């Protein structure tokens, strides 16, 4: 019999089993008739006949029911048995349900990302026809430029339309402060290539495409946000920094799924005439009717050859090919997402194998029931069906819960994906994900039910195959314990570090301080910028409730600082390695230190600018002083942080300030220097103010004040420093929680697996134990024997896990700096916790040994 017919026969009640029910019913009926003939009344006769038939079994009841519903009822009855069996073992059922829901949920979440990224067509008309030009120069991928784009457009017959685009930003002034708009600058007819149909207005004319007119097509979202979907929006103007763009059209809603674009504007004329060497343009094309990719690529190869002949210098080493746009967008995200999916499927599979092992172990408890069922002619198929149904009834609610868990974990996953992940706006848990969940549910049901079902249906009970599968399961359990230990240790180390870091003082006082970070274009004129900062700081300082105002390029705890180049100390010969050692660098104003209350340990703060000149003075922190001026007074020394290739630029050290950690998890202080921002190329971007009262509330007023000074300055982030410090903790906190949750789930699975193996072990040796008991062995000695098996597996797992944890911890140390990579305390706690949990898991099956009655066991066989 093939596997399939076997499976089908098991799941669907076949003709044979219906016949059996019929036959048995006939028997009971005949018996009743006989009783009636001897004078018993009909009801009583039927009852007696049934009682006599079933005797010790309750199953006769169900035989009657089978009469009513024939085939379906057999399935229902078995389902009821399966459900009753699950109900009777709440611990098993709940853990099974939880691990399935988690396993399926995580898979659904990852699938939703993968689906949008790799499987679904792009939200474009005839998306399969939209191709991207993938260009590379000497093997390195490069973007295109308008000159080459025009060559493609004019020479390729296999493409209907060719266009290019690049991202740009606009700042929009408004009553609530300025906002940033994401613009897509277009070259050629990109909108036709992408196949968007405007919901309002028109596409750019060929003349407008050349970039000489200030026209814009806005996104559906922007239309909604700024104009409340007013149809008279066409012809209105969008203003940004002295420029005004006339709105000529509105994009359809789905256009935003590709990328979060607020408006489409033709690239400026001079951008459209950059050199053939430039690389900033994404070039796309739409295949002409009836043309396939191979044909288009063949033509492109010819055209590229002609282009090289015509431009031997600029096009040298250039290679180009067409690829579906979706594939190109998925690009780098593809590999990690596939990897993630693989890991998730493996976890789910492990969960299934464990549950299967548990069901298998329960064969022991089932022996009696199986015997009775066989006795009334249930046959093996019915037994197999029962096991499969049990798996099905575990998998169905597991799958439904999994969909819910999937929804939650998807939100979490999406939040953790980098913002520049392609198509992120289009990702959602949808009907396709639900279908995937259904498939997973079926898969789980089969994976869980198959092994016990076949075991139950095997003609020869427990042969050599059993031994091999036992070995495999032992290996799985060892692996799971190892993984659990690794995760537990990781969670422990992370938590330990978090606690440690939180107890430490920051070296500054974050309370009652607000911070505003400005989003300023890198090419802003330096003099203007300094003027803005000085103006802003002065204005805020005069506001009521403000105590002091400072400026800094990056807040401490914001993660990282700029690092300075080559260190030179006048009158001191530094070894090359020491001169090149990394140290932090911050551009600040003098009152930054007083505002954050960073204590000055020695000397004084550098001087403020006087007119156009700022004194060349520098502050260092304690760690810097210890590293380079150990035992010497650094105040008055002269140093230069300029690159080695440049002439030194000397700064006098005026004082030493206390260390401030760079990021929340960072225990080791970093050496740092501070100079006045007017002395640097880098501009500060954050204004900090110490206020009386609530810093968060004060922020709104300060924002307004800044907007009065310059309505086009974007504020990237604003709020109390307290809340920003709290924010800095979110990632390590999330990481610790995630690892903790995973380790618990893994621990649970490992325990289930261990329980399953030991239960199987005890079951297989029940007869032997009975003989031993009869020969005078104490139950405790037999329990020890069984326990030893479990302890052995647990210990191997812990040892393997110990080795596994070392590289993982190193990885964590790199992610969350601070403390030693080796954390013996976390290690021992995890190992002890794991060991005792394993003992508990072993105890349940071993307890059964104590209850064995030698005589009963032997008679049983």
């Amino acid at each position, binding site marked *: 019999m093939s596997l399939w017919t076997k499976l089908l026969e098991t799941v669907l009640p076949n003709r044979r089993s219906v*016949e059996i029910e019929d036959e048995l019913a006939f028997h009971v009926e005949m018996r009743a008739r006989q009783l009636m003939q001897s004078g018993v009344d009909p009801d009583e006769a039927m009852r007696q006949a049934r009682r006599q038939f079933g005797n010790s079994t309750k199953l006769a009841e169900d035989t009657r029911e089978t009469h009513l519903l024939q085939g379906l009822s057999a399935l229902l009855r078995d389902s009821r048995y399966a459900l009753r069996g699950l109900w009777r073992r709440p611990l098993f059922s709940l853990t099974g349900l939880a691990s399935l829901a988690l396993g399926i949920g995580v898979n659904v979440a990852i699938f939703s990302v993968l689906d949008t990224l790799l499987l679904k067509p792009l939200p474009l008309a005839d998306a399969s026809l939209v191709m991207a030009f993938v260009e590379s120069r000497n093997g390195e991928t490069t973007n295109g430029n308008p000159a080459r784009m025009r060559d493609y457009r004019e020479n390729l017959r296999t493409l209907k339309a060719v266009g290019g685009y690049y991202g740009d930003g606009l700042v929009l002034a408004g009553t609530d402060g300025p906002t940033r708009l994401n613009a897509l600058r277009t070259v050629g007819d990109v909108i036709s290539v992408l196949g968007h149909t405007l919901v309002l207005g028109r596409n750019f004319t060929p003349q407008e495409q050349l970039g000489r007119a200030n026209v814009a097509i806005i996104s559906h979202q922007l239309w909604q946000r700024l104009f409340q979907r007013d149809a008279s929006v066409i012809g209105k103007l969008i203003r940004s920094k002295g420029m005004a763009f006339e709105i000529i059209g509105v994009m359809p809603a789905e256009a935003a799924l590709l990328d979060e674009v607020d408006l489409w504007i033709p690239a400026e004329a001079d951008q459209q005439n950059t050199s053939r060497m430039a690389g900033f343009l994404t070039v796309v094309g739409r295949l002409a009717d009836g043309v396939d990719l191979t044909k288009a690529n063949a033509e492109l190869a010819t055209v590229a050859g002609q282009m090289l002949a015509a431009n031997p210098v600029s096009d040298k080493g250039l290679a180009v090919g067409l690829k579906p746009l979706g594939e190109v967008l998925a690009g780098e995200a593809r590999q990690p997402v596939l990897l993630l999916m693989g890991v998730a499927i493996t976890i789910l599979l492990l969960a299934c194998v464990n549950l299967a092992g548990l069901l298998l172990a329960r064969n022991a408890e089932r022996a009696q029931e199986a015997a009775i069922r066989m006795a009334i002619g249930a046959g093996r198929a019915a037994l197999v069906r029962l096991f499969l149904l049990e798996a099905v009834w575990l998998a169905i609610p597991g799958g439904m819960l999994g969909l819910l868990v999937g929804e939650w974990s998807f939100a979490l996953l999406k939040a953790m994906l980098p913002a520049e992940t392609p198509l992120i706006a289009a990702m959602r848990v949808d009907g396709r994900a639900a279908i995937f969940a259904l498939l997973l549910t079926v898969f789980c049901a089969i994976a869980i039910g198959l092994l016990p079902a076949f075991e139950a249906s095997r003609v020869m009970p427990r042969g050599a195959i059993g031994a091999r599968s036992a070995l495999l399961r032992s290996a799985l359990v060892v692996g799971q314990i190892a993984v659990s230990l690794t995760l537990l240790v990781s969670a422990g180390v992370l938590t330990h570090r978090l606690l440690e870091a939180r107890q430490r003082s920051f070296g500054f006082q974050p309370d009652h301080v607000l911070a505003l970070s400005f989003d300023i274009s890198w090419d802003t004129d330096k003099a203007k910028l300094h003027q803005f900062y000085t103006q802003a700081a002065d204005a805020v300082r005069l506001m009521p409730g403000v105590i002091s105002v400072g400026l800094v390029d990056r807040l401490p705890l914001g993660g990282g600082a700029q690092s300075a180049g080559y260190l030179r100390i006048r009158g001191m010969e530094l070894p090359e390695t020491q001169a090149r050692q990394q140290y932090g660098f911050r551009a600040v104003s003098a009152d930054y230190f007083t505002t954050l209350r960073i204590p000055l340990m020695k000397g004084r703060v550098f001087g403020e600018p006087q007119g156009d000149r700022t004194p060349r003075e520098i502050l260092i922190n304690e760690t810097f002083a210890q590293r380079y001026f150990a035992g010497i007074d650094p105040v008055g020394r002269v140093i230069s942080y300029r690159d080695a290739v440049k002439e030194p630029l000397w700064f006098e050290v005026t004082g030493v300030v206390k260390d401030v950690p760079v990021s929340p998890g960072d225990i080791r202080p970093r050496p740092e220097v501070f100079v006045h921002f007017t002395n640097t190329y880098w501009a500060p971007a954050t204004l900090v103010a110490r206020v009386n009262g609530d810093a968060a509330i004060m922020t709104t007023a300060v924002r307004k004040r800044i907007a009065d000074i310059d309505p086009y300055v974007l504020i990237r982030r604003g709020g109390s420093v307290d809340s920003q410090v709290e924010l800095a903790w979110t990632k390590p906190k999330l990481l610790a929680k995630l690892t903790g949750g995973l380790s618990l789930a893994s621990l649970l699975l490992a325990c289930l697996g261990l329980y399953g193996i030991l239960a199987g072990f005890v079951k297989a040796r029940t007869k032997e134990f009975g003989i031993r008991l009869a020969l005078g062995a104490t139950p405790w000695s037999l329990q020890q024997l069984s326990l030893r098996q479990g302890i052995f597996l647990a210990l191997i797992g812990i040892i393997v896990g110990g080795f596994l944890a070392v590289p993982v911890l190193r990885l964590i140390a790199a992610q969350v700096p601070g403390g030693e990579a080796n954390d013996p305390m976390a290690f021992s706690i995890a190992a002890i916790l794991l060991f005792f949990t394993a003992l508990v898991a072993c105890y349940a099956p071993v307890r059964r040994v104590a209850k064995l009655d030698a005589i009963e066991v032997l008679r049983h066989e």
Partner: protein
Amino acid sequence: MAKSKNDILQGTLTLLVLQAISKTPLHGYGITLFIEQASEDLLRVEEGSLYPALHRLEEQGWIAAEWGVTETNRRARFYSLTAEGRKQLDAELASWDRLTSGVTKVLRFA
């Protein structure tokens, strides 16, 4: 539940079943009736043993089953002996004879 005295000895059920249907096909209930009546109620067949035995014998190819209609017009499954089964019946009868004569001889000495 205590086992009744007239339980059929392990291993003899096959012999009795084969013998019961050796003359004419019978349904399961008919087999129990036949054994009870022929033994003058000394032997009783447990249904829980009979049906598994019937299916086992059918799988071994000693008996064949067929749906038929009883005198009371009720659908029932009738069992009959196959050629293979007849051979088996002869073998079982021979071995039963050996067993009983052996046991009898031993008992005579006691």
